[in-house]
């Protein structure tokens, strides 16, 4: 079982900050325009964003660490095996012969930490693409090449 690069925690932290900010803006609007209009609304304006802020703060601190702690992947003899999840635990397996193609992708945040993401496509339709985030670019390429060897053209 292999773990991701620890820097991925920083990437996830940024995601969580972004998400928290988004929800704060939404609830701020909601609070200002809708909730304050409710007669006898028991809280002051800015209460819901504050709640969101604290929930966001806790998840931003805790979740990336936990996610990292529980993220594993393994290249077995015949299959790629992923094991991850904090609240909902998911084990996934994709037999090599089922892999259609493999992409390496990188978004802005990931580029900051020079990390890449391996996206593994199968012909499956539900949760079809398995994603391994937080890999150093050279390592992602190595994995891609390794997996490519196994990938067989195979009719569905």
């Amino acid at each position, binding site marked *: 079982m292999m773990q991701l690069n620890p820097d991925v925690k920083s990437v996830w932290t940024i995601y969580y900050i972004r998400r928290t900010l988004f929800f704060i803006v939404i609830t701020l609007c909601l609070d200002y325009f809708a909730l304050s209009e409710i007669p006898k609304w028991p809280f002051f304006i800015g209460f819901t964003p504050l709640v969101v802020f604290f929930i966001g703060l806790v998840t931003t601190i805790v979740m990336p660490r936990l996610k990292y702690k529980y993220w594993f992947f393994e290249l077995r003899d015949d*299959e790629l095996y992923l094991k991850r999840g904090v609240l909902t635990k*998911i*084990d996934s397996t994709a037999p090599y012969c*089922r892999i259609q193609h493999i992409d390496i992708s990188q978004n802005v945040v990931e580029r900051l930490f020079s990390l890449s993401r391996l996206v593994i496509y199968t012909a499956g*339709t539900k949760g079809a693409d398995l994603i391994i985030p937080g890999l150093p670019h050279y390592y992602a390429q190595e994995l891609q090449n390794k997996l490519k060897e196994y990938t067989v053209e195979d*009719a*569905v």
Partner: protein
Amino acid sequence: MSQMAEQISEKRLHPFTLLYRLVVALPNAALPIIFVLYTGNTGEWAYIFISLFLGFFILPGILLNYFYFDYTITEQEVVIRSGILSKKERHIKIDRIQNVTITQNFLHKLMRIAKVQLETAGDATTEGNLDSVSIADSERIREIIRNHQHEKTSTEVSEDGVEKEDRPLEIEEENVIFSMSLWDTIRYGAVRFRPIVLVASAWIFSMVSQFNPNWTDELEVILESGYKDYIKQLDIFMLVIYAIAGVLLVLLLSWIIDILLTVNTYYKFKLVSERGKLMTSQGLFSSQKGAIPLKKLQMMVIKSNPITRKLNFYRLDLQTAGFGGGDGTKAKSETAIPFAKFTQVKEIINKIRNVELPETFTKVSPKTIRRAVVKYLLFSIPFGVGLYFAFDSFWVLLILIPIIGFGAFIRYQYRGYHVEDNQIIVKQGFWFQKISIIPIEKIQTLHKRSSYFQRRLGLATVEIDTAATVYGNDASIIDIDIDIATEIFDELNRLFIEDKNKRKVS
């Protein structure tokens, strides 16, 4: 067969194609004009110009496209040549053609022409469309391709283990597995009760019921006399009667519409077995022919709703990965049997793929009842609040408890699974129950999922993903003990890889 000309060379499409394409293109050109007429804004000459402009280009376009299009069929390949300025020649190898589909929509039928689609295992860019040729030609094209294929690949096809012996062509034509009489089709329509039809007929009803010529006068009277007086003079009893009558009328309307639509779609439904393929044909106004290549079959699903179950009628859907293969986006579900007794469905399943449905399924963990109760309780909160205010009594909520308990129990009762060497069978659903049969070799990815609440009860869900998981038709074994889930997960994985290796060797 040898008397028949085995080739077609540089043939054009049927001349009626011109007419057909013109009729189809007409709405495009007319749209701006309609817009102008509708708004009454005749000052907008630009729209009319656009229309004329389109008309000016569409007609020559159709003509040129027609004259610069021809097809050739030889023993080796089908060649489709097209293009005015940039010429395109598409060569499709005969033995690559998976299927020849002939379709006719309403216009085609009027003009006695048909569309021929040559489907290959590759993606859409390697397919060929002949839209349209005469009916006789369409049959002939199919015959020729089939004959050429038959000469070459008679051994190749039989290898996939589905079709054991190579039957002579003449018998194949009559190898009808399943067909539906008109009476069956009507009965099928009568028990479908599709929600979408209900919504549509409610809409139609509301439109029609508003069509009162004196409507505006009435509104004026209401507004003049003050709406409060108007409401007062309404008879509550009559209103209730009207409302009930309205609901019943909508139900009746949707029932009739559903029957008519079903007859239109499934009229003369026939399921025919051909070399490694199942062919369906159906339809009253627009006949449809579908093909289900057995090699691409991903999942078989037996479906039922409470009414059909009561009458012991079931439906069989076959899900294929689509001709596109690969990306899975073209996965589709094809109905092989719309309406048949359970024993008959079982028989046909057995014919399609050597499957015996087990008498008993392994049950999921009874703890699922607990989870269902919690889930249903949450769902019924709004309903409960309504009940509480309507009856102004807390005790009335108690009647919810046996209902929820019973529902949860029924769901548990129906859920089950059965793992075999060649396939996995999953039973699930509450109102709309379904039994999914998935061949082991079609598994794409496997997932074992357990949420926080599941883990508290030591449960997990095994999800089986194939290339044909059409939305809402996924197969999951929900809420089994975590150890069993791991076992099944590993077992399926092992079976799959073994199967794969076996295939590789042979």
